[in-house]
């Protein structure tokens, strides 16, 4: 090994990561990896805690998607205590899930990813960010900031906290919705749906249309996919069955509680994040670019690839157009962004559907909960992928075992592959510069880790 290029930290992503690219004597890429640098140990620190407290503890796993951890946890605790939430409890939880989904999409696409496309991958690092967009296109920046803020404040007003929420509880929800609150949310969600339509058109014209070459090349690998679907095979994000698709398109559906029969977690000696893989394919685990084994992807690209359709009209129309352009299950890594904007439309439409249901105003928001011994697996689709919380409790209803597979970790193995693919194809003969290394990071950013 002649040289190691370090990109540290990987920026405009949610977590703490670095990239190490090893060059050989000729200056070509010998190896490249993405490293996750920290570990907090949530599976350990929750042990002994009363299970009903977990939704308020594990939401701290992620400050960008705390609602996802909060809701996966309330479902897992429901399972431990053997309680079925009231129908309205489910509606309120799903509404908050959809609202949080909306905010996350706006944040990721416009604040984190878009500077690479709007200002260009070669633009100077000091302006290639949302502050740079605010200078280059102040109207766009203001609108994006306002829309994200609107979504956050809708959640904040209704549920008390948008970040690190508390309103989801075992058995349902902590408070009912009033008519005034519904009016506020309906108005806001309609505005957000209009914005989602704008965002999708903007993406098609300014990003996906202009960067065809990058889409065809950057970080492209061949993998399977994991997502959630409803009983008809339609996209589901709050509740559904898991669907694992192999690289040839073969699918297996299973309930969240059966995840251990399909997914195992490998340990990469260079990263504190474990790497889940499809153990049920019986191939073992390999990151080899030509012969990957057990590798699947999660998050937006994966969800749109595994579903048969999207159950809301505008998002379904967008899905049809997307599939007409790129095929039924594209592998292009940068298409995560396109799929993200289609999911943004879906989440807005779904919020309006939920708010239109009169049952959402029912005051019976929480079923009776009796702490006790049990096991429960709670699963939701987080923005970054399928999120699984798996708990067991003792007779007092306190946690004795917890396993969590966080959305991003499904993509640890594929991100390592995309980094190597991007670095190998971009760096030749030891020639590279800052903008070229930024292109390697763009392959990571697509996964929104």
């Amino acid at each position: 090994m002649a040289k190691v290029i370090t990109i540290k930290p990987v920026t405009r992503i949610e977590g703490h990561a670095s990239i190490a690219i090893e060059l050989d004597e000729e200056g070509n890429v010998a190896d490249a990896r993405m490293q996750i640098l920290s570990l907090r140990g949530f599976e350990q620190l929750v042990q002994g805690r009363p299970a009903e407290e977990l939704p308020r503890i594990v939401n701290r796993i992620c400050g960008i998607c705390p609602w996802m951890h909060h809701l996966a946890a309330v479902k897992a605790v429901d399972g431990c205590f053997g309680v079925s939430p009231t129908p309205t409890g489910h509606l309120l939880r799903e509404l908050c899930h959809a609202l949080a989904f909306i905010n996350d999409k706006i944040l990721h696409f416009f604040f984190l990813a878009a500077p690479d496309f709007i200002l260009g991958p070669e633009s100077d690092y000091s302006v290639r960010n949302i502050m740079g967009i605010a200078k280059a296109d102040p109207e766009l920046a203001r609108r994006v900031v306002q829309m994200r803020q609107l979504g956050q404040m809708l959640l904040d007003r209704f549920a008390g906290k948008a970040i690190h929420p508390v309103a989801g509880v075992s058995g349902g929800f902590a408070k009912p919705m009033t008519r005034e609150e519904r009016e506020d949310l309906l108005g806001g969600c309609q505005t957000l749906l209009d914005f989602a339509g704008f965002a999708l058109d903007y993406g098609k014209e300014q990003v996906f249309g202009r960067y065809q070459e990058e889409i065809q090349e950057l970080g492209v690998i061949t993998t399977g996919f994991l997502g959630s679907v409803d009983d008809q095979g339609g996209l589901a994000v709050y509740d559904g069955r898991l669907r694992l698709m192999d690289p040839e398109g073969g699918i297996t559906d299973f309930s969240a509680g059966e995840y251990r029969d399909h997914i195992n977690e490998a340990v990469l000696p260079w990263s504190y994040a474990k790497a889940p893989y499809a153990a049920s394919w019986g191939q073992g685990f390999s990151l080899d670019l030509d012969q990957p084994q057990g590798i699947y992807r999660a998050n937006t690209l994966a969800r749109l690839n595994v579903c048969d359709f999207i159950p809301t009209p505008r998002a379904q129309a967008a899905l049809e157009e997307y599939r007409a352009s790129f095929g039924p299950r594209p592998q292009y890594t940068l298409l995560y962004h396109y799929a993200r904007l289609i999911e943004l439309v879906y989440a807005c439409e779904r919020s309006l559907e939920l708010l239109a249901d009169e049952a959402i105003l029912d005051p019976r928001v929480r079923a009776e909960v009796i702490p006790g011994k049990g096991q429960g697996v709670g699963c939701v689709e987080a923005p970054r992928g399928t999120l699984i919380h798996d708990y067991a409790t003792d007779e007092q209803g306190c946690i004795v075992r917890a396993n969590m597979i966080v959305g991003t970790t499904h993509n640890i193995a594929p991100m390592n592959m995309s980094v190597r693919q991007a670095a190998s194809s971009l760096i030749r003969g030891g020639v590279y510069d800052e903008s070229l290394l930024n292109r390697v990071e763009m392959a990571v950013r697509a996964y929104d880790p």
Partner: protein
Amino acid sequence: MPLRLVEEWLHSCSGCEIALLNMGEGLLELLPGLEIVHMPILMDHKYVSSQGEDGAEPQLSLPRAEVGLVSGGCANEEHRELLEEIRAKCDFLVAMGTCATHGGIPALTNTRGLEQTYAEVFAAADHGQAAVPDQGVPRPLDRVYAVDELVRVDLLVPGCPPNPVHLKEVLTALVEGRAPQLPTKSVCDTCPAIRRGTIEKKEVQRFTVNADYDPAQELSAMRCLLEQGLMCMGPVTAAGCARRGAPSCIQARVPCRGCYGPVRNQGNQMMDMMNALVSGGVDMKTIVDRQGLLRFSGAHNRLRKRARRRG
């Protein structure tokens, strides 16, 4: 001259950074007065500078700045190195959020220590075949530290997450060259619920039933959750979460768990809460997870490893 700002996250979740963004247009208004020179969530400045030099160990370095904002506690060697570099390069250092000021949720691992935590996490993976990763990843410290345990801090702004209103006040005050106005009281001092001075139940009720209240009525018509018999940590928790006239969890009709840390910076939320309950005639033995009362403030050796029992 705009104020140069360095922002970093250590042992954290990014919730503090999202709280910064939740200033909304307030952030856009602040931008002319600020020059962000380092902030990994939003911009591409790297702290490793010697990129790819032959044989050279990458050096960690940050630009000079008037203000440093740090979220997260400190849990590994790289966090510590970064924190020391931020302290060295920034004139004024703000510890942002409860992880930075008091350890936060991740400091719950302090009862077992980080070495044991890491060993347990990886022992459970891959059919028990895996070792703790050790190739180019930072080594853990012995436990999770609040940042003021390791470097001098000029201002503590707790909250999980901190209130965007206060973050804006801090940045505005620094730009204007004045002292920021921040709350000093307890959560209860900002709560409109009805307090009569007596706790109705002598046993602490777990939050497995919702509070008793009329959803059609304002919060000011609801009886204090602690007096209803629920564990509510408002009396011993620093104020700051209140928006729209009430603490944020109370707005969801959910009791406080203490996420802004102790009212007095050196206070102990567990001891103070138990004192409050005992003086209200409550049987302390009915608290299921007393350690959990320190779930946000376990740094500063509040939570520590118990001596191993023999035999």
